[in-house]
């Protein structure tokens, strides 16, 4: 199989594009990212590797906005992410200029996925090594959406999804515990999913909340710590209730 993973324009005999699969491996090694869609709120959460003491943590924002009403989080090669995000931002403005309308979430997702696909079908280039979670509100109908793209260029809409390290465990957790939420409940659900795979604490997670009225708001460390404390308290209460049933009779 070694002969089929150099130039990515070549299929292997059993139909694989190895470079794309290796890109997915790179994604699996990237930091965990989760996105949850509520009825009026969408939450993105990303694992933050501990920052070095001398590093300015504000310069390593992992959740970025593409336009006033669209935000993106990703897992994988951060340098590739920067390029893709810049192109997406330009496309958002170009769309506003040519049709005098902000982009829909589906449109910009399709653009980003199309860009990722282009690099899987050209000579001499490698695919982008990242999967993105794109969230936003439709500019006219106000409906919230969450989309995911991956290095092969496929995309689809999700109610909640996770990517990056340990994404399978997070996704399992979300599948078991997802229900329609709104406001703070959505934030809690996203953080609970992240806490399954990340050490607890505000300094290890970055969370951003998007609402129709206020756009994208990054939560401060203190706010995250408060929610984490709430979650731990709820967990402790649930544990205590499990151990105490004989008293109820």
């Amino acid at each position, binding site marked *: 199989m070694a002969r089929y993973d150099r130039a990515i324009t070549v299929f292997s005999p059993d139909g694989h594009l190895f470079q794309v699969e290796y890109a997915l491996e790179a994604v699996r090694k990237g930091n965990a990212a989760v996105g949850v869609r509520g009825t009026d709120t969408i939450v993105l959460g990303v694992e933050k590797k501990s920052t070095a003491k001398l590093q300015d943590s504000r310069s390593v924002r992992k959740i970025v906005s593409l336009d006033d009403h669209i935000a993106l989080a990703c897992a994988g090669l951060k340098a590739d992410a920067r390029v893709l995000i810049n*192109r997406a931002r*330009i496309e958002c403005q170009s769309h506003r*200029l*040519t*049709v*005098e*309308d902000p982009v*829909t979430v*589906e*449109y910009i997702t*399709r653009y980003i996925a199309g860009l990722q696909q*282009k*690099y899987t*079908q*050209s*000579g*001499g*280039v490698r695919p982008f090594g990242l999967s993105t979670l794109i969230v936003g509100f439709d500019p*006219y109908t106000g409906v919230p959406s969450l989309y995911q793209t991956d290095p092969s260029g496929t995309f689809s809409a999700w109610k909640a999804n996770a990517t990056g390290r340990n994404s399978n465990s997070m996704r399992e957790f979300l599948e078991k515990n997802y229900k329609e939420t709104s406001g703070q409940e959505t934030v809690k659900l996203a953080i609970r999913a992240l806490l399954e795979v990340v050490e607890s604490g505000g300094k290890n997670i970055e969370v951003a909340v998007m609402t129709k009225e206020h756009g994208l708001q990054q939560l401060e460390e203190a706010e995250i710590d408060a929610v984490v404390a709430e979650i731990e308290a709820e967990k402790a209460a649930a544990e205590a209730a499990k151990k105490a049933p004989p008293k109820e009779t």
Partner: protein
Amino acid sequence: MKLDFSGLESTAPLFGASSNLFNGFSTAPSFEIPNTAAFDDFQKEAIQMVKPAKGTTTLAFIFKEGVMVAADSRASMGGYISSQSVKKIIEINPYMLGTMAGGAADCQFWHRNLGIKCRLHELANKRRISVAGASKLLANILYSYRGMGLSVGTMIAGWDETGPGLYYVDSEGGRLKGTRFSVGSGSPYAYGVLDNGYHFDMSVDEAAELARRSIYHATFRDGASGGVASVYYVGPNGWKKLSGDDVGELHYMYYPVAPTIVEQEMAEVSGV
């Protein structure tokens, strides 16, 4: 000369089309520097050469119920009337109309091209394009051909999610949003009648009558306008053709011939 056929190209990427990957912007249309010493003036001369004096009358206005669009149907080549039955209101799609003034071929071709782009937008984005967006697409194309001799003076009228929309777009690359426009050699006459009779709160019938009368008066005084006055209405459910009346007949409807007293007596005497 590199012309903008982007609306006609297929969207499948070609192998080796790697220039697109590395700068993200397609190259701008351009043409060779012409063989002339007067760089500042040659464009003006080119335009003067091909500038047919937009012999026509078209008008459109927004009112409470939607948009009213009307036009005459005469085509003239200098002093020769080449046709009295030209369709100057072009149906871009079931909810958008364009008017034709200037070069007939230019208007027809670019309006059809605009129709293609609007349909592609609908298919890709699962929702109709707005009137603002459609007029912007047309204006950008015409701007890229600026100075090359296109002659288009058009109004894009339609109904989209934000309500009725009306834009004026021309081959100089200009694009204006407005509520009342008239384009063509007969437009001063049409404006006179239109501006005088316009109220926002008209009914569809009143607005249609105003549009018809404005076209009629323009055809009465302007030699390059005539034929049939067509009136279209664009409402929330799309456009509908309301009437197409020969302006000669309209004339006798507005100014019927009243027999003079002498003629009446003669008619009585001869026992009619």
